[in-house]
Every structure is written in C-alpha cells, then in structure tokens.
C-alpha cells in the first residue's frame, strides 16, 4: 500500500515536537485572525513570512498552512455569534448560523461547524493523498508548451471564478504579469522596469507588495465605515448537538466535503467558492426551502465543511503543478521559492517528506482546531470585544517591521506604502487585488515557458495547438472565456455570488 506508506512518512514528519508546535502556532494565529474581522489570511501570512526564513521549509509551510485553514474555522465563530463574517469564506454561514444563535442554538451551530470542518478536513487529507501523486505524474510529462497552456488556463479560470467584473480581473492579472517582469531578465541580463534602483534588480519585494495591497489598503477601507459592529451574542449554553441535529446535517457535511474537494482544485477556487456552492446546493436539495435563512442547520454544516475541504484541497495544484490557485497559494509559492524549493511535480519525488509531512500536518491541525474552537470559544468571543481602533495600529506596525525584515531594507517598506496607495485605488475602482498577485507569481514562469516553447518550435506559434495536451488546455481556456461573455451564463454567475 503506497498510500499508507506515504501517510506513515507524513505522520512521522508531522508529529515531531517542532512541527507540532508550529502547527499549533499556525492554528492559533489562524483562529485568531479568523475570529477578528478586518484582517485576512493573506495579510497575516505575508506578515509572518519573514519569521519563517530561519525554519525548515516543511515547518514553515506547516505553520503557514495552519493559518489558512485555521482562519476558516475561526471565521465561522464570528459569523454565528456576531452576524458578521470573520472571513470571506464564512459569508454564507452568517445566514443560518446567526439565526440559530438568535434562537438560542448558538452551541449547536458552533458544534456542527467544528464537527463538519473536522470531517471535511479528514476527507480532504485522504483525497490529497490519493489524487496528488497521479496529478504530479501527469505534470512530469509536461513540456514548456504544456506548462504555458496550463498557466493560461489557470489564470483564466481564476478570473472566471473570481468575484466582480471578469474583464477587470483579466486586466489585473495582466498588470500582475507585468509587475512580475520587474528586475533582471535571466536570459539577457537586462534590468527591466527597475527605475535604476539597485533594490529592484531582484524584482519587486513580494512580501511588501502583498502587505500594501492587502493589509494597508484594507485597513483604510475598513476605517471609512463609520461604525464598527460589536455585538456579542448571549452566553453559549451547551456546546453539543442532539442526535436528530446530527442526522439532519450529516448528509450536508458529506456533500459539502465533496463540493470543497472538487472546487478547491480549480484555479480561483478554494474556501470561499466552495462555501457558496455548498449553500446553493443544500438550499436546492432541501424539501422545505423556506427554512433556509431562518436557522437551518444544513445551511451551517454544508458550507462550513465545504470551506475547510476547499481550503485544504487548493494546496494540490500548488504542490503538484506549481500553479497557485488563489492569493494564499501564491504566497505559499513565494515561501517555497524563498526556501529555494521550486514548486512543481518534483516536490513529491525530490522532497517527499515535505509533501507528505504537510499533508499529514493538515489532519493533525484539524484535530487541534476542534479543541481550540469548542472548549475555548469563550476566549475567542472575548477577543471580539476588542475595538478595531486598538487592533489596526498593531497590524500596521507589524507590517512595517515585517516588510523591512524581508530584505532588511527600508526600501521595501516604501514599496508597501506605494502599494497601499494602489490597493486603495484598485478596491475603489472595483478591481480585486488577488488576480494581480497570481499574475505576479506566475509572470516569470509564464514568460520562461513561452520562450522555451518557441525556441523549441523555432518561433512557430502553432506549437501550442498542435500538441494535444496543450491544445486541450487552450481549448478549455477559450471555452471558459466564451462562456463568460454569454449573457445567460454571466447572469447565473452573478447570481451564485449574490446568493447570500
């Protein structure tokens, strides 16, 4: 049983004391930022990335991963108790979760959210273990042309699945690709778009850019809202569910885990999309749809399972193909590159302990999160009463020092300031910053593979459509684009995102 051997290797890495400690730290930090509205996993991971430089790559990744899936646990607590999503991925949990809390069933809602997440997390761990190796094998057969087409497909589907205007998302991706060109061109040694600054020779600071776009700009947007809600629900009576409630929500958990496992792998997918899809599915399948929005337990169980499964599964394309599917995965790629590991199919063969250690740590982390979230929920609720005016200066200071420490250079902090300014503009103009980050990460790889493919074909562009696998992927990308433009589908897409 190769699968079991692999998992055994993974667990032997994941349960070393140092990795357990960092998984725990990641889960605690993740829950914390998940509970607190106004700070997301992207900004947090960027903030903590410099701290991980001194760690082993697998330890660093275990901690950063814990932050990501921990945030989707914590986000549900806020959604249920305060009627405010702590994270984007728990937006739909608000609908029925808070209604349940109002009816005095907050304990059941919290319990089913944690239980569903744990079951989904376990499923996702097994799905990754089963499907990642064949995917990596497939990727090993890829040549430059296939890689180029795969990245194009990835970028385009990320756009289609993103929120808001698709054209703006395309434009943000292209802008990101251009930002990725900054620095020395490896083939000719020409410094491109470097404004004659020696600090830009190695490219624009990626930690600093992320902090500006995600942390600084987001704080500015948050501060515009006149008041910040601070309502905490009553005491939580019992943190357990009845057998009837469990029977009612178990099918939803299974369907949610499945939805997350399928949608998490798609570029642009991950936690948020999975949760939206699962809610729509549960509502459609319910005998009595009017219960939804009035405290239906399936409306909590499904999306909460889906967002956790989606969060974990989105590691698959990043680890096996080297293609990040969302902004958090783009940061993970950045983290790996900092540790001199090129994300891609070779990770599994060259550093199996990294890959399997990370996968096993996800299960360990999920078990920790159940403990963190159920008995300790009172503590998190207390944190919620901390006013935002005390919180954001902390984030700002940590970001400023974090940006400096990436290269021990104040220039990077200026970059963060500049991108804070840009980020505010982008958000005001309805342009999401996540596609820009994806483009930035994929830019150099996209150019390199385009070049290599065309060198091999002696400048013949048809190479992308004469090779079957490359042609298939480009065809899929084109189909997605065409589908996007069709009015009927466009309306449907808006509807899915507005559900809630």
């Amino acid at each position, binding site marked *: 049983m190769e699968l079991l051997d692999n998992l055994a290797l993974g667990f032997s890495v994941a349960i070393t004391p140092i990795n357990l400690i960092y998984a725990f730290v990641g889960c605690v930090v993740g829950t914390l930022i998940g509970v607190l509205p106004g700070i997301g996993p992207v900004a947090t991971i960027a903030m903590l990335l410099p*701290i991980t430089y001194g760690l082993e790559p697998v330890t660093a990744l275990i901690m950063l991963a814990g932050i990501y899936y921990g945030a989707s646990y914590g986000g549900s607590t806020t959604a249920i108790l305060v009627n405010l999503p702590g994270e984007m991925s728990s937006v739909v949990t608000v609908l029925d979760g808070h209604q349940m809390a109002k009816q005095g069933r907050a304990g059941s809602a919290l319990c089913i959210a944690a239980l569903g997440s744990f079951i989904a997390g376990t499923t996702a761990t097994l799905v990754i273990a089963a499907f990642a190796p064949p995917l990596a094998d497939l990727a090993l057969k890829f040549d430059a042309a296939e890689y180029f087409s795969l990245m194009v497909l990835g970028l385009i589907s990320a756009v289609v699945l993103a929120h808001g*205007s698709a*054209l*703006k998302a*395309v*434009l943000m991706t*292209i*802008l990101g*690709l*251009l930002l990725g*060109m900054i620095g020395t*061109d490896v*083939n*000719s040694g*020409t410094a*491109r*778009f470097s404004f004659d600054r020696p600090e830009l020779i190695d490219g624009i600071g990626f930690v600093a850019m992320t902090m500006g776009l995600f942390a*600084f*700009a987001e*704080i*500015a947007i948050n*501060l*515009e809202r006149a*008041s910040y809600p601070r309502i905490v629900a009553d005491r939580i009576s019992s943190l357990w569910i009845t057998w009837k409630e469990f029977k009612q929500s178990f099918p939803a958990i299974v369907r949610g885990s499945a939805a997350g496992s399928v949608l998490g792998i798609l570029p642009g997918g991950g936690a948020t999309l999975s949760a939206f899809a699962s809610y729509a599915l549960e509502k459609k399948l319910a005998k009595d749809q009017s219960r939804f929005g009035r405290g239906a337990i399936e409306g909590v169980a499904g999306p909460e399972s889906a967002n956790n499964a989606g969060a974990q599964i989105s590691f698959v394309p990043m680890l096996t193909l080297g293609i990040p599917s969302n902004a958090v995965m783009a940061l993970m790629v950045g983290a790996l590159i900092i540790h001199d590991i090129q994300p891609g199919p070779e990770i599994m063969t060259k550093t199996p302990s990294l890959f399997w250690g990370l996968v096993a740590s996800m299960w360990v982390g999920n078990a920790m999160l159940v403990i963190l979230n159920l008995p300790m929920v009172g503590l998190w609720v207390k944190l919620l009463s901390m006013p*935002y*005016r*005390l919180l*954001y*200066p902390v984030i*700002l*200071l*940590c970001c*400023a*020092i974090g940006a*400096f*420490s990436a290269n*021990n250079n*104040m220039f990077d*902090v*200026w970059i*963060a*300031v500049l991108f*804070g*300014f840009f980020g*505010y*503009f982008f958000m*005001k*103009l*309805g*342009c999401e910053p996540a596609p820009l980050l994806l483009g930035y990460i994929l830019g150099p790889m996209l*150019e390199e593979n*385009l*070049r290599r493919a*065309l*060198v091999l*074909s*002696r*400048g*013949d*562009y048809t190479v992308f459509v004469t090779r079957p696998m490359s042609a298939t992927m480009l065809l899929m990308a084109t189909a997605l684009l065409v589908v996007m433009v069709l009015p009927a589908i466009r309306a449907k897409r808006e509807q899915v995102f507005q559900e809630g």
Partner: protein
Amino acid sequence: MIRNTRDVVAGLMFMAFGGVALFMAQSYALGTAARMGPGYFPRLLGFLLLGLGAVQCLIGLRSKLASPLDWHWRPLLILLTSVALFIVLTPVIGLVASGLVLVVASSAAGAEFRWKEALILGAILGAAAAALFVHGLAVPLPIWPDFAGRS
C-alpha cells in the same frame, strides 16, 4: 454625461499602466519569436493592457448603471503618512520611539481619537516590537536613539 465613473476611470488607469510599460519597454531588445529579447513579452502585455483597458473604458461609457466614485482620502493618507514617518524616523530615533509615533499617528485615522489611549498603546507596542523583533527575531533595527550620532 458619464454615469459609471468607476468603470471609466478603471479603464483609463489600466491604459495608463499599459502606456508606461510600452514606453519603458522601448529600450529593451525585441528579438524574434524564436529568440525572444527582454522586450518581447513586456511589450505583448503592454499592448494587451492598452487594448483591453480601452474596452473597459468603452463599456463604462456605455453603461447606464450609476457608479460614482467616493474617495475618503483622510484615513488612507494618515495611515500611509504614519508608515512613512516610521521609515524616516526609525534609523534616527530607534524602534521604541518610532513605534510610538506610528501608533499615535495612525490612531488619528479612525473615527474617534483618544490621546491617552493612543499614547499608552504606542508605548506598549513600541517596547513589545523591540523585544520581539529585534531581540527575539534579530531584525537589524536600532532600538534606542543614536545620541552620539555614531551611525
């Protein structure tokens, strides 16, 4: 009369980025498809931004949806200024003091500003940052002011 200002301005912004990229890429060798120079791919992206940005602009002009812009400069400018102060001041007055400056200055960005609270928070955070980042994580930043002017 432009109603959807947001979309039009967004289109113009992307066109501007594309224009700048094309202008700067002029000096990079173009090469051929088989032997691409450093200017090939950036120029391709520049043209795409310019073209699709124009499309975005047109869509905005034709849109009947009213989507005006509402800027709130104050919070953004105060936040970014406080970080800029931090950048300039840290090498001179050290992290403990510059952390205090950043916290107090950025606190003014919110709706309510309380002097006493901001000062206390700033003092705590400045000291905590010095302990955690400089002592704990060995980030090379000065903790105290450089009185003797040795640097």
